[in-house]
């Protein structure tokens, strides 16, 4: 492998790795938001039930 081919290979690996970092990073962020929302929805549901009980 000559020097040019080695450099090409490194740039290619960098491009593919960065693509996956962006995509998987976004997926992880989405997963964390989903989890936080589930907790928030449970809390919000409790608040809603309590307010309904207080004001039937």
């Amino acid at each position, binding site marked *: 492998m000559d020097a040019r081919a080695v450099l090409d290979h490194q740039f290619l690996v960098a*491009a593919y790795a960065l693509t996956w970092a962006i995509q998987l990073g976004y997926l992880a962020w989405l997963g964390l938001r*989903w989890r936080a929302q589930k907790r928030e*929805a449970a809390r919000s549901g409790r608040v809603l039930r309590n307010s309904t009980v207080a004001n039937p």
Partner: protein
Amino acid sequence: MKKLAFGLYAALTVALLAWGFYQAIYVAPLDAQQGEIFRIIFYHVPSASVAFLFFAISLAGSIGYLAFRRNRPERAQISDAWALAGAEVGVVFCSVVLVTGPIWGRRAWGIWWTWDARLTTTLVLWLIYVSYLLLRRFAAGPQVQTLAAVLGIFGALDVPIVYMSNRWWRTQHPAPVFGGDADSGMDPIMKHALLWNMLAWLAWGVLILALRYRVERQQQKIAADEAQAAMDAIL
């Protein structure tokens, strides 16, 4: 049943991505002029195509929101969720384009960036949709969704300009490979590999778009529940 269908779709997407990677690295031949660096095309071009498609979904959602906001609030909220999901996932794919492009350009042209029409209009497109997301994130008040919908519609006007830029103007960016001049085109094996990767990235995009839409709909429901609880507390 829904969970099973989602799991099967996710498994199919992962298999397609693995197959696309195999096609890109082991099946497609080396480019006669560019050598191995040419293989960036298998991530760069599909990402651009998927970004364009999702910005079109955002456009449809924005138009839907403006059309339904007065008389069909539920439909308006659904449209708004699609608009936001399309814009956000489109920005993710557009970011991939703007990262992989300069890496390719550095090896192919010797420069990371140049202000030619294709690159500049793509950067402007990305900036418009990032500003759309910042508006959604930080602005408050009843008009935010309407303002965002208007911005989403104007942002989408840049998509055809990006697509046509290397047809309308002489650019450093290569001329279109598909649908270009008579001498445009690609080796059939390379084309085959590119189509597999387009399918794989489209499947991946649809997966995360559906997740993002679901998260946004859930957020709307939480906001509605909280508003209801606040009203009940007042009454």
